């Protein structure tokens, strides 16, 4: 019985040792090799003082090393924390400080960026995966040395111990660390492999980078069933014609990504020239899929089944909707469907009272896939759960998704929008308030507002600046780039004279969004 996430790898290393576990371009790693290498890495980490409950940063581009890193860290009893290679050193440093990371796993390809982090932050004492770094008192060990380290038994931990922390943007500007246990991660892997009937012969296409939570489908669910995951290199994500070629060559059977990647494949992937008959499930999630594109893709791949998968990273996933009939011409949204068998969903009003069938409200979710909480964030943790009494001192705990949904009957939950101003763009979760917060920290900015341009599905921001300041748009964009993840940087930042306001004198962001819809960039 597999009780900890890494046990999947060791299990299949015994069952089918020579089976490819992960592939990256012309390299691959078998289950036996993965099992051994991760045990060696765990030994190296433990020898460097890593123990149960510690956090270890994964600072790697998509690669085979990333899978060795996450399973090795978990075998050492620690939780892995994916660090986005494209994020600024400032933002990465914020995460490293916030969850107390003092050991990183990296690669010589990342040396320049790694050096930037080490120069700015002195908490790191150990970097595995590079030969040397230009900083005093930092232990290093390259991958070759890891490959020759002794194989050690894993640290003793239990399923309730933490396994990984995924950072997402928070409304105060500080990132939020979604903390999952082996139990919650594995409950997700079990449920989703059952839902899509994953078999050892399946080949997953890993599109999402590690710091994007849907990557857990490829990294946890595939190894649970002894399947193979093909890690798709970053450059393919911008080159749909090469991506579709790779999908064909690798005979992928399962695909899970945000809708945007599928739309790009449909529009620019020369799909008519590709044989993708092997695809049996195309799963999408993270944001709504425009029905016109989905419909066209379903026509393109008639043999595949399509499924909408819904759930905030805090509960991994919790509902699904299989699309088994052609979409109606006037279909305006794809349902998020029915709750998983292992999850309970309750829709409540502003007062936390369950709403009547057909009325909209916030979705609360209770499931074994739920996170333990946000790392080092007592206030967030005090507010993000709803408790329903069972008996004196015994409560059911629900996660407040903040998503407004309605039950349209026949197992069709419909997603209507975010309760607060958190939005999803190309699968990334972005808090508009965080963007405003960052802009407002600029010394020359008076007030800032971030808003969505609905017709183009992108973010813009507008600011008023102090009299006499010569601040310009380019400088503001640079300022944002240092403090925000790439995907949260406004497409354009307008310097304006005066904000439109509501009757209560609040900035009217809805009006801003309409005012500038279709306007030229600055």
């Amino acid at each position, binding site marked *: 019985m597999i009780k900890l996430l890494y046990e999947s790898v060791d299990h299949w290393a015994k069952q089918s040792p020579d089976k490819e576990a992960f592939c990256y371009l012309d390299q691959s790693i078998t289950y036996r090799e993965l099992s051994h290498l991760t045990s060696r890495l765990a030994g190296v980490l433990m020898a460097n003082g890593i123990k149960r409950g510690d956090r270890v940063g994964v600072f790697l581009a998509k690669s085979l090393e990333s899978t060795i890193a996450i399973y090795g860290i978990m075998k050492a009893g620690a939780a892995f924390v994916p660090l986005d290679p494209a994020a600024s050193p400032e933002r990465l440093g914020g995460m490293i400080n916030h969850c107390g990371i003092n050991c990183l796993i990296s690669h010589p*390809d990342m040396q320049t960026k790694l050096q930037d982090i080490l120069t700015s932050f002195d908490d790191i004492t150990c970097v595995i995966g590079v030969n040397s770094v230009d900083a005093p008192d930092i232990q290093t060990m390259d991958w070759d040395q890891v490959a020759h380290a002794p194989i050690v038994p894993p640290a003793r931990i239990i399923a309730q111990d933490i396994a990984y922390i995924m950072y997402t943007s928070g409304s105060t500007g500080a990132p939020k660390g979604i903390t999952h246990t082996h139990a919650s991660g594995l409950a997700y892997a079990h449920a989703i492999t059952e839902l899509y009937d994953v078999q050892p012969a399946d080949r997953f296409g890993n599109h999402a980078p590690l710091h994007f939570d849907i990557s857990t489908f490829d990294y946890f669910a595939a190894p649970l069933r002894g399947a193979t995951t093909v890690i798709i*290199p*970053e*450059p*393919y994500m911008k080159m*749909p*014609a090469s991506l579709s070629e790779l999908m064909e060559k690798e005979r992928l059977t399962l695909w899970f990504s945000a809708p945007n990647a599928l739309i790009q494949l449909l*529009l620019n992937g*020369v799909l008519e020239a590709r044989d993708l008959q092997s695809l049996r499930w195309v799963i999408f999630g993270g944001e709504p899929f425009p029905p016109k594109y989905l419909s066209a893709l379903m026509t393109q791949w008639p043999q595949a089944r399509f499924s909408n998968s819904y759930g905030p990273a805090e509960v991994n996933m919790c509902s699904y909707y299989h699309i088994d009939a052609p979409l109606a011409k006037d279909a305006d949204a794809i349902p998020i469907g029915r709750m998983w068998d292992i999850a309970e969903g309750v829709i409540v009003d502003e007062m936390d009272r369950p709403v009547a069938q057909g009325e909209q409200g916030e979705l609360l979710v209770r499931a074994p896939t739920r996170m333990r909480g946000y790392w080092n964030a007592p206030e967030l943790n005090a507010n993000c759960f709803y408790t329903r009494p069972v008996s004196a001192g015994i409560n059911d705990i629900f996660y407040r998704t903040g998503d407004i949904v309605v039950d349209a009957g026949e197992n069709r939950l419909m997603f209507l929008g975010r309760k607060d101003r958190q939005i999803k763009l190309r699968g990334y979760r972005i808090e508009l308030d965080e963007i405003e917060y960052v802009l407002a920290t600029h010394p020359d900015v008076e007030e800032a507002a971030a808003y969505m341009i609905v017709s183009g599905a992108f973010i813009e921001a507008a600011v008023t600046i102090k009299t006499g300041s010569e601040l310009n748009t380019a400088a503001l964009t640079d300022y944002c780039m240092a403090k925000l993840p790439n995907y949260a940087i406004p497409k354009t930042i307008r310097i304006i004279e005066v904000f439109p306001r509501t009757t209560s004198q609040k900035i009217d962001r809805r009006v801003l969004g309409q005012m500038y819809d279709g306007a030229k960039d600055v």
Partner: protein
Amino acid sequence: MKILAFISVLSKYTRMNIIGNADKSVISDFICEKLLNNRSIESDENLLLSGLLDSLGIVKLMLFLEEKFSITIPPQDVTITNMASVDAIVGYLDKRPDHP
């Protein structure tokens, strides 16, 4: 006749080579100055799978090529093979039917 054909092939080769070299330095300079913060590159250095160019860099490079050479690069040509290195890009431009 054979000699004429040879000269014709030779002149075609030389012409392409000259254009190729000019293209090469224009492309290298753009990548080095605008995308890599003045880090110099070899013409056969892998730009994509090495992680040298990030996704934004790839988009900027496409836009530059389209503008500089007054061409449209169709989606099926935006591939890992065609854009792998400066040499690969020059090779791709030479191969295009609209190349001068």
